């Protein structure tokens, strides 16, 4: 839709209403179904029924005595969850500029291709009966390898952190194969928390790397940290401040000279499509967050997919199996192959098929030019938005995301207040190198008009007093939620509510 059509449709054009927040014309009121001192009652508060075991086909000593669960008939079920959906904010409702999360529009048609019943098959089918599925997976492996500049890709890891864990296991197996006992993984202080946790889960000692004054890797600190024990350096590039690690080639040389490998955390790949490939920068292993870069829906916390790409030297260690083209003499197009020195499986089957199918469709829709344009617009949007807000952005030049500082305000309170303007706030208080951080990633999907509204939301909040912030949000389903109470008086099920 063009701007012109927008303007003629609602008559507002580019004129922004003046005045305070509620007069600005873009606040919202979220649905608030209420029932006394609660919102929509829990399903179990509506109706429960009990199972009967008199007609059990098993002996009594092998069955349970009783079971009581909620039971809603279909009209009630539909209304229950439709009401809950109305009390939930998604990217289809408005901007969602959560830094590091790459909340893009999830193209509607990708849901349809994933729902194809021919793809909804059992994982233990014989290989000749899933040639279609394997052809899609093989094409996706190929696409991702090209995009990352990698030689081989596994699609098995079901999320980004699972991809990290897989990559670390692959690196570990590589070193071990070479008779090289290395116990440390270096992670920059400002890295995603999963990097530390994945390295620790794989049994490595984590060496935290302090950042340089310019927000990038400090080469002296890196030199200090590197040694005979270094198995891996995990890097995000651009980093969590949105800055490109300009010294990446030197970093790669230093790590490789020390006998270590270089890992690329793909969380920020949306900044680089068509302009830089991890493989060309000296990275040996990487994961892709397809629920970020390749627009598969985040589903309220998952499922995602975290495919892992590697250079040739690491390919023999990838998880089992890989999808490969069958030899010419075979009647099959595709088959499974166990990599020579595989680490085995990292997911019970082949990962999250529905997510992978959507990622393939997205990449195919965009192609070379679309992917490149997505990064261009993502970087343009971040820079434009930053130029329009009053909060200071201390580090640059940034790419697809920037980290603003809320200054004297509490970033968490700023976020709560932004909700009242009908926008989702940025990621807050992280990375810690920026005080009261507002880590903001608008992605390419927002046009100027929405970015201007987002900027207005930032600026309105920047001008508000501490009391207004502390009392926010006002227009969401719930008012400010007491986190201390939730953690101190733990109630993790409806049973606990009765106690």
């Amino acid at each position: 839709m063009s701007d012109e059509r927008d303007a003629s449709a609602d008559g507002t054009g580019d004129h922004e209403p003046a005045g305070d927040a509620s007069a600005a014309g873009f606040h919202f009121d979220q649905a608030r179904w209420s029932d006394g001192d609660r919102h929509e009652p829990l399903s179990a508060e509506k109706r429960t029924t009990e199972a009967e075991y008199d007609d059990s086909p098993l002996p009594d000593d092998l069955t349970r005595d009783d079971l009581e669960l909620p039971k809603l008939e279909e009209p009630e079920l539909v209304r229950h969850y439709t009401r809950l959906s109305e009390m939930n904010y998604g990217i289809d409702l408005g901007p969602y500029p959560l830094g590091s999360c790459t909340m893009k529009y999830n193209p509607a048609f990708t849901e349809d291709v994933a729902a194809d019943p021919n793809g909804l098959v059992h994982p233990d089918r014989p290989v000749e009966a899933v040639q279609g599925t394997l052809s899609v997976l093989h094409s996706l492996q190929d696409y991702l390898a090209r995009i990352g500049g990698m030689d081989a890709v596994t699609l098995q890891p079901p999320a980004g952190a699972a991809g990290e864990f897989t990559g670390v296991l692959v690196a570990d197996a590589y070193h071990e194969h070479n008779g090289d006992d290395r116990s440390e993984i270096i992670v920059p202080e400002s890295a995603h928390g999963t990097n530390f946790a994945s390295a620790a889960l794989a049994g490595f000692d984590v060496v935290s790397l302090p950042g340089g004054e310019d927000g990038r890797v400090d080469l002296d600190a890196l030199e200090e940290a590197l040694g005979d024990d270094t198995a891996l350096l995990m890097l995000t590039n651009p980093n969590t401040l949105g800055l490109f690690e300009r010294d990446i080639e030197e970093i790669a040389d230093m790590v490789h000279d020390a006998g270590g490998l270089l890992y690329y955390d793909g969380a920020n790949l949306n900044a680089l499509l068509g302009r830089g490939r991890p493989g060309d920068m000296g990275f040996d292993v990487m994961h892709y967050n397809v629920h970020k870069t390749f627009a598969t829906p985040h589903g309220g916390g998952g499922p995602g997919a975290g495919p892992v790409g590697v250079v040739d030297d690491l390919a023999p260690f990838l998880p089992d199996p890989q999808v490969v083209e069958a030899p010419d003499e075979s009647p099959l197009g595709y088959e499974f192959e166990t990599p020579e020195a595989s680490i085995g499986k990292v997911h019970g089957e082949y990962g999250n098929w529905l997510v992978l199918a959507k990622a393939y469709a997205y990449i195919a829709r965009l192609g070379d030019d679309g992917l490149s344009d997505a990064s261009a617009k993502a970087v343009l949007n971040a820079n434009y938005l930053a130029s329009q807000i009053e909060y200071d952005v201390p580090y640059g030049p940034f790419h697809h995301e920037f980290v603003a500082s809320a200054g004297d305000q509490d970033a968490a309170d700023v976020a709560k207040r932004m909700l009242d303007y009908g926008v989702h706030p940025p990621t807050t208080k992280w990375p810690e190198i920026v005080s009261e951080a507002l880590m903001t990633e608008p992605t390419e999907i927002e046009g100027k008009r929405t970015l201007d509204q987002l900027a207005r939301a930032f600026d309105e909040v920047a001008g508000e007093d501490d009391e207004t912030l502390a009392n926010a949000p006002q227009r969401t389903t719930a008012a400010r939620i007491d986190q201390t109470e939730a953690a101190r008086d733990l109630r993790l099920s409806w049973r606990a509510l009765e106690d």
Partner: protein
Amino acid sequence: MNGRDTEGTPYAPHGDAETAAMLSAVGVDTEEALFDIPESVRFDGDFGIEARTEREIRAEMGEALARNRDLVELLGRGHYDYYVPSAIDHLADRSEFLTSYTQYQPEVTQGFLQALFEYQSLLVELTGLGIANCSMYDAATALGEAATLAERVRESSGTRVLVPEHLESGRREVLANYVAGTDLVVETYAMDDGNADLDALAERVDAETVMVYAETPTVRGCVEENLDAVGDLAADDDALFVLGTDPVSLALLEEPASVGADVVVGSAAVLGLPQSYGMDLGLFACREDFVRQVPGRLVGASTDAEGRRTYTLTLQTREQHIRRERATSNICTNQAWVALRAAMHATGLGADGLADLAKRDVADARDLAARVDDVEGVQAPHHDRHHLREFVAHTDQPARAIRDDLVDEGYAIHVVDEHHVQLCTVGTTEDERDEFVDALAEVAR
């Protein structure tokens, strides 16, 4: 849908004039000027990926997936094709759910949080354990997480994890990878005609044992008859008793808490999700006193400033974004949307509906085994046990040849070993099973 002349992503709304205005506001002439990438690592090639239209991609993927053979699947072993009502698809696809992120701003995401709270609560009812998290990736990774939990809470200096000899290979391999970074060692205990061999297990469990894992039904579909004895053996040596199962079986079989289970793992995607080529939902429930050691996200109840009951992610200090290398797990993105679907499906079925599914699964397996046993060259069930959904059958002819012949006839079955196949009833109609028995009779002689 966009009015731009230039080729680019269809999912960015910028017109040329708009782009120019934004560039001007930033103070650069081109988008390229915003990229701070050294020339030496700039990528100036092509991926060689041709953009296609929606229509073309739907046709291409539709044609590709149509190459999957049209088979009647008698397949189970952890993935079951229960019918999922249309209402679940339509509700779960509401974009307020589907396109939302993790609930880091709970005030604006009460709907999803309540649904996850309901999911956790359903698992608490089904397992009898105090807490359930709001998902792991799949049954295999949930088992791996259970082992690392056992290491964190163990009371002995032991390192042994005991698992049954019959264990699905994916679960075994994933478990091995999850313990690779610990000093835990995975060992197996023998099975006796499809159930845990209690004597063999008793010999293996000692002070060095930190975890005993059992499944019901087992990977071969046998109801485990001695769960309380397994639980006692584990408890005698302060080992964690981890039970693998699923929400449908739980609606009929013994309640895990009543047999001494400390942790329950398994596949919760038996509810709410059709077969999706192995995509799953990892169930994870455990004793309340492990609450600070639980992996994954937890939704708890609280109160908002207006005094209303609300929900929020809680105890996040266990998680990677706060605790980093000391977190209880590295998991961040999980399977929340699948958990939403499972909760919807369970709520639509109710306790009676769920129990009816499990009762039917016992009856159907019994019936099919009896009929297959009448086929010349086949003896079923191989194990003299109660079965749920599926069973192993002995074949006089090589199992692989029978499997291959059946594919030609339009059926998919499991091969267990040289002379054993496995057959599952879930997802097939009675007519389909009738025709299958006829087809089996043709190829099994």
